[in-house]
């Protein structure tokens, strides 16, 4: 149950941090409020969000999240991708709305844990 197997199972595109896809996935947290993530997300979680500005990199790095999953067709600026690579932050793109992304990830996590 690592970022790579999640990415492959759910068809995410990898935008940054290709070298760190072997990180374990401990769970997931979905929020667009940065302080909510700072307060409630746990290390090793995947963070589903529609925020794609540079500050998500600092949040993911400080909280030691395993990956960020950007939803919809949100365009992530090269500047953000560069910062993410520097800070060893994995950014994936789901290409789907937040609800579908969260639902699919929830199912994958449940199956992966029970299977």
């Amino acid at each position, binding site marked *: 149950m690592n970022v790579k197997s999640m990415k492959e199972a759910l068809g995410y595109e990898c935008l940054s941090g290709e070298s760190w896809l072997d990180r374990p996935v401990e769970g997931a947290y979905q929020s667009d409020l940065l302080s909510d993530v700072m*307060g409630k997300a746990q*290390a090793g979680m995947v963070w589903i969000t529609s*925020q794609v500005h540079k*500050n998500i990199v600092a949040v993911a790095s400080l909280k030691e999240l395993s990956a960020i999953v950007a939803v919809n067709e949100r365009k992530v600026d090269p500047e953000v991708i560069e910062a993410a690579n520097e800070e060893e932050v994995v950014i994936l793109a789901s290409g789907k709305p937040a609800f579908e992304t969260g639902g699919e990830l929830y199912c994958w996590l449940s199956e992966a844990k029970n299977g």
Partner: protein
Amino acid sequence: MRIEYHIEGGDFSAAGGASSAVRKTLKQFNIAPLLVRRIAVVLYEAEMNVVAHAYHGTMTVDIRPTGIYVVIEDSGPGIEDIDKAMQEGFSTATDEVRQMGFGAGMGLPNIRKNCDEMTLTSTPGVGTRLEIQVNF
């Protein structure tokens, strides 16, 4: 070990830099990961408060064998009602800042939850001073 960082109000692209730098230093000192993560939350929220609300400020970090002592002092509008500011969900952030996902009114509560000592003082129209301690 004492380090001082400058924080520029409104500069969201550099925001989080001071917190990241301190986190890296703490990791080098082999501080327990859980403690490092608590300190990271405290520093980031304090730093973002300056970025989102003040004109400019400084973060002074003092790492001692017993713990980490941080003073964040800014020039800015200050806080009218500190009790209110400490309430979860209360925020005076602008719409622009909220659109970025800040201003959820959880910054100060997050700091309080993750530190051992916290003193917040402010003079409206002048600025705010936040003293934080996390014991090792």
